[in-house]
Each structure stands twice: as C-alpha cells, then as structure tokens.
C-alpha cells in the first residue's frame, strides 16, 4: 500500500471552464438522479477517467470516515468529526488545487487531506491525541486542522497576502499590486456556522480590500452543531460576498463535478489577479456534529432522509453506470481498495506509539532558545521524580 493512497492530480486541460462566478442559481452539472445538465457559465466535458477517479476518492474518503467513527466508538480515538455527505464538496474542491496552492482546513476536511496526498493515518493520530498537527504543511500544501471555528480564514488571507507580496517583490516595485499571475492561491475551508464568526468576516474585509489571491470555500452543511443555517443568515450565504466586494457563487455541494468546475474557475480568477471568491457549497452533514453529539435531538429524521436521496456518491455511480463509463469490475475494485485502506488504517492506528512527553517542545518554536531549554530540563526532572514512571510516557 503506497503512503499516498489517493492521487493528487490537479485538474487542468481536460476540463474547459467558461465564464465567471457570480450566477444567481445553484450551479449543478449532475443531478441527484445522475443526469448531466448544462450550465451556461460552467461548460464541462469530463472524460471517464476523471469521473472514475473523483468517484474513487469519494469512496475512499467515506470509508476512512466510517472507520474513524468505528474506532472512536471502540475507544481508539478521543473524538471523530464525520464528513459523511460532504465528500463531493471536499473532493471536488481539493482536486481543483495545484500542488503549490495552500489549503486551510477545519477538523472535518478528511477528504481534502486525502486529496492533498497525506496518509490518512495522520488524521487518526490527531484524533488519537498523539500529535498537534499531523503533517508537514509546506510539503503537502495543507495547513493543520483548525479546531477554533473560523480562525483559519484569517490564516488563509494572511498567507495569500504573503504570496501576493512575494510575487510583487519578485517582479519589482514598478508592477501594480494584485497582479499575481501564475502564483499560488490560498483556500480557506469553513462552514455555515463559522460564517457568523468575526474572524471570517475580518478575513473577507482584508481579502476584498487587498484583492488577495484566496478562495473562501464554505461548506454549508445546514447545521452549526445544533443551530440550523437560517439562524446564521437572512440572505443566502454566497450573497454576503457582495457586501465585501467580491463575487459569491452557490454550488450544489453534493455534485462533485460542479464543485470542481466552480472551484477551478475561482482559483483561476485568483491566479489571474482577480481577487477572492466566496463559494458556498450547498450540502448536508448526514452524521452528527461529532461522535459526542446526538443529532436526533435537534433535527428530524425526515430531513436526513431527504438529503440521503441527494447522495454525492450515488449520482456519480449512476451516471457512470448509465453511460457505461465504468464496468462492475471498477466498482468492485474501488470497494476492495477502500476496505484495504480501512484495514490498514485500523492496524496502523492501534499500533501507534505514544509520543514522548518531551516531544511537546519540538514544534512550538521554529528554533530552540534558552527559556525553552530550561522548560524542557524542568519537565525532564519532573518526569524523573514521578513516583510511577509508567504514568507518564517518556
């Protein structure tokens, strides 16, 4: 099993994107029944291989999610935030990214992590409480999970402003700011609940005013823990972008093709110096907020069932079947691959060693300094005085 179970090929060339974000209606290219529909702004011709690989990534993401939930229920993880229902929003957007783009995820973006080429075992390490980060952000173009709601939107804009200034310096002072053709783009992932946070709105202000190369990717999964989306906003979320001076677009978040197309378009706009875009991926959190939440206490089963009919995987499967773009062997192979991935995750998760206590000093600062050395020595002395050395991992 390779370390990177999911391909991280950014989409280029074989998708033709026409037009700009900003259209009023929900952008949809594949209906819940698996019918291809046209959209005036996003004309897409996706070959079978691309559809197959998008489908495969979603299946793997769902399987990782199922295993994460099971491992938590078995006491192997402290917590798990399920992405079920949001596979298309995450896979479609992440697969639009180039290798040197930088994504800033929340704690639910497991499919984004997979698509960036990170071994899913790293996600387990986070929820098992063994690491504060999990992966090298620079190597994978992926910031650590943000547990604080909405803070990562500011991180993304800060990163984007840095990219913008680096590019400006490289070109020399004569060029006007904002012209960042070909340079990386930052993507801020957040949810409908975070859209109410001050950080996210500040990020909008900065991004708008400085024309930052950033894409705000909001997965509106309808529930901010127990609060419905109508308690977050009086207007559709994507229309908030108007007030900050950049375009907003609402895409069917359960349609992987539409999400991919809309994200590619927004990324291109940012690369071309056009500034930020707000994408509202209209989707649904099928599971509870986390394993420590009981969703039946605040929402109806009928609502969940309605959304299950809009399943992001089923519509692609139906389309592939109907158009004979994939044979049964393909689906069997993807199923087997996902089971193998889950088994490997479980094995690795159960076998993970506790980190030594002194490792907590390793990544707090970029380098060492005297106070840090003193604190490390203090802790080492404390550990030596512990009455039961087995109590604290060395």
């Amino acid at each position, binding site marked *: 099993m390779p370390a990177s179970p999911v391909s991280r090929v950014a989409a280029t060339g074989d998708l033709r994107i026409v037009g700009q974000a900003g259209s009023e209606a929900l952008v949809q290219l594949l209906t819940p029944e698996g019918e291809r529909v046209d959209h005036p702004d996003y004309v897409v011709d996706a070959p079978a291989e691309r559809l197959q690989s998008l489908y495969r990534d979603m299946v793997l993401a769902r399987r990782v999610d199922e295993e994460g939930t099971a491992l*938590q229920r*078995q*006491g192997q993880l*402290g917590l798990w935030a399920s992405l079920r229902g949001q596979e298309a929003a995450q896979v479609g957007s992440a697969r639009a990214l180039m290798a040197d783009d930088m994504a800033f995820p929340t704690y639910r973006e497991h499919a984004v992590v997979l698509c960036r080429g990170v071994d899913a075992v790293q996600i387990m390490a986070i929820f*098992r*409480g*063994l690491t504060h980060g999990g992966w090298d952000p620079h190597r994978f173009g992926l910031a650590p999970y943000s547990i604080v709601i909405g803070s990562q939107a500011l991180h993304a804009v800060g990163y984007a402003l840095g990219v913008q200034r680096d590019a400006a310096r490289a070109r020399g002072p004569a060029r006007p700011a904002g012209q960042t053709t070909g340079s990386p783009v930052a993507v801020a992932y957040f949810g409908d609940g975070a859209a109410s946070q001050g950080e996210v709105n500040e990020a909008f202000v900065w991004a708008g005013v400085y024309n930052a190369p950033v894409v705000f990717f909001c997965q509106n999964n309808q529930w901010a823990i127990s609060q419905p989306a109508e308690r977050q906003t009086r207007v559709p979320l994507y229309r908030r972008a108007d007030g900050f001076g950049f375009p907003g677009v609402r895409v069917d978040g359960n349609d992987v093709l539409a999400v991919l197309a809309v994200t590619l378009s927004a990324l291109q706009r940012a690369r071309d110096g056009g500034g930020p875009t707000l994408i509202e991926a209209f989707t649904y959190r099928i599971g509870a907020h986390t394993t420590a939440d009981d969703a039946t206490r605040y929402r109806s089963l009928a609502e969940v069932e309605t959304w299950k009919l809009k399943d992001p995987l089923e519509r692609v499967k139906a389309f592939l079947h109907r158009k004979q773009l994939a044979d049964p062997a393909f689906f069997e192979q993807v199923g087997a691959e996902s089971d193998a991935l889950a088994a490997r995750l479980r094995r690795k998760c159960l076998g993970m060693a506790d980190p030594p206590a002194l490792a907590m000093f390793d990544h707090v600062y970029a380098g060492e300094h005297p106070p840090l050395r003193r604190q490390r020595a203090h802790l080492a002395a*404390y550990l030596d005085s512990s*009455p039961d050395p087995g109590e604290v991992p060395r």
Partner: protein
Amino acid sequence: MASQQFRLPDLGEGLTEGEILRWLVNVGDSVRLNQPIVEVETVKAAVEVPSPLAGVVTEILVSAGAIVPVGAPLVRIDVEISDPAEGRGGGSDAVPGSQPAPVLVGYGPPAVAARRRRSAPTGRAKQSEAVAREPQPLAPPPVRKLARDLGVHLETLRGSGPGGVISREDVARAAEAAGAAQSPEAAPEVRSPVAERLPLRGVRRAMSMAVTTSAFTAPHASVCLAVDVTASMRLRERLAGLSDFAGLPVSPLLLVAKALLVAARRHPLINSSWDEAAQEIVVHPAVNLGIAVATARGLVVPNVKDAGALPLAGLARALGDLTDAAREGRTTPAAMTGGTITITNVGVFGVDGGTPILNPGEAAILALGQVRQMPWVVDGGLAVRDVVQLTLAFDHRIVDGRLAGEFLADVSAMLTEPAMLTAWS
C-alpha cells in the same frame, strides 16, 4: 482462537459511564469487525457501538438497563487470529478499550476519570481557590500524588527541601509516623469536610426521572381532609380476628385502599391518564392500584392488577406480597408498569400528611398520614378519636377541584362510617 474482552470506551468527551440500552447480538452469534453489537446511551447521545473484534460472542457481561462505568467489560468474544499483526498484544484482555495509557482526549481508566469528576467541584476546587489567598505547602505534583495515596496531609508537614519544599522522604516519614500512631486508641483522623457525591443509579435514578417527568408535565393540585377513622379501626380489629384474614396484614392501608377502589368506581375519571399525543383522556376500565414502597434501594411503586376485582382478603394478600417483594428487591418490571392510581403511606414515617407527586401517567395519588388519637368534636362535645389526614394530589388537566373533593369526601365517608363501604360496593 483467543478469548478477548471489549470494554466500554468513552463514547463522548470525558464521559464516565453509559447505560446499556439493548444488545444487538446474542451469545453464540458470529460478529464481523465493526458490526454494531450494543446500543449504549450516555449523557450526550445514544449510539450503536461497533465491535472491534471479529469472532463469536461467548459471554455478554452486562445486561440491558445496566449503567456501567467507562472501562467496564461488556462482552467476551472468541477471536480467530488470522493476521499476526492483528493479534499483537497477545494477552486475553489486551484489546481495544483496555489501553493502559490514557492518551486519548478525555479518556482514562474509570477510577481516574470518576475521581477527577467527583473531586473537581468539591475538595480540589476549594483547594485551588485557597491557593491564591493563603500560602499552601510547597510540593511537586508527584509528591502531592504520593501524599494523597498515603493519606498524608501536606498542610501538617514542614518541608526539608530548599525553601520549605516537601520531598518524597518527608511524606514517607509522615506516613510511617501516622502508621505507628494508628493504634486502636489513636484519635480518629480529622479530615476536612468534603461533600459526598452519590451516583445516580438504579432505583434512585428511576425515581428521580419519574418524579421530574411527572412534576414538569402534569400540573399538580391537591385537596386534603382530616378524617375520623375510629370506626374503621374497630372494623380492622374485628377483621383481623376472622379466619379469612388469618396470617394476613389487616392495616389501615388495606381499608383506605378498599375505600379508594369503591370511590374510584363511583368517579371513573379519577382512574385515568393523559394522552398528550392524541390529546385525549384515557379512562381505564380497571384499577391497577400502585403502592409506593420505601426500600433500602429507594422508592418503588409496584401495583396490584385489577385490584377492584379482588375480595378484601385477596387485596390484603396482594398488598402484603407486593410490599414484601419490593423490600426484598424482587419486584418484577411487570409489577412496576401499568399502574393507574397510587396510594402512598407516608404515615409509616410518623408524619400526618404531605403533598405527593403523581406516579407518571396517572391522574391521582392519595397520601395517607399516620393514624393517631386527636381531640375531635363529636355531637357538639370534645372526644378523643382516631384521626388520619388524607391528601389527594391530582393532574389538574384531567381532574378539577370538584371531582377531587367529591372523591376524597367519598373515601372519607367510607372510613368514618364503614357501612358506606357496603352501601357503595
């Protein structure tokens, strides 16, 4: 094959226990990895727990309805080890859920978790408040732990270390000295008072939930009446002498129960329930008479099915059996459900009366105080009579003050003049 246990994990964040709602597998069943095997409810959510093991269930260690602490063994599964890597750890209990090192968020061995929870709002919170105000003994955390384990109070020690820091040796010396002083004559150890925290389990938990449900769904009102039961007490003595009642308890409760059953037939609405879903009142065809019984484990309310159909001796036997079973903890779930009206005999606690809370789903409950001799006006003069106070609490959605008053007056009339029992039976 290797037998392994699966222990209850912390299903939320920092939970200490869970209630087994139902088992989804039986002993002898084969289970797959991640197959849901049991439904567990915590304070946060009810969830299906997937099996971490594939194999055959050989033993179910806790039954449905039990509340078990995190870490308690739930089930034993015979596992087929095909992949040596899967079987790493070898020992029969070296399985998921029984990890020795508490590295998970909010996860820990049950005793540790429980202790942390219990002490947080009490002793330790006070201690940390005090830290800010008055000097506390200086000791590193491992030494504090040692002191706690050995029952040594750091406040009583003078540290031998630099700046008065208490060392492990100081604590060990103090513990040794305390052990030597622990002769039978030694003064009892003085401990700072700490609030006791009682776990909410079993009967106590059921009672708490039942009264809360009832108190906050049914609008309660009550009427009360002091009753001259001198004639009933005389009747009771005569009944007790009859061969039909040989060996049976003939108590004031028995006569009050009989009077209630007769009065309930005259006022059927008193024996009814509120159906919130249907927005209807359900008038029950028979009286399943509940008796509130104080037991060592707490309050239970079993009921006598169709009590109105029993002859008086049969009722006496049924009430006796019911209370005996409850006190011995043998009350069956069937006896606890389906009650339609209840009597609570608070008189056995030596009190005159009280306002009871309805048994959930019932429209009325009658509280019976102690029978005692009181000055009473009889024919314009004072006399000493046997008097009891009756209180009827009722669900005001169903029963109004008039019905409650008439019902209670009827019960009272039969106790004052037992001939009425015969007249209305």
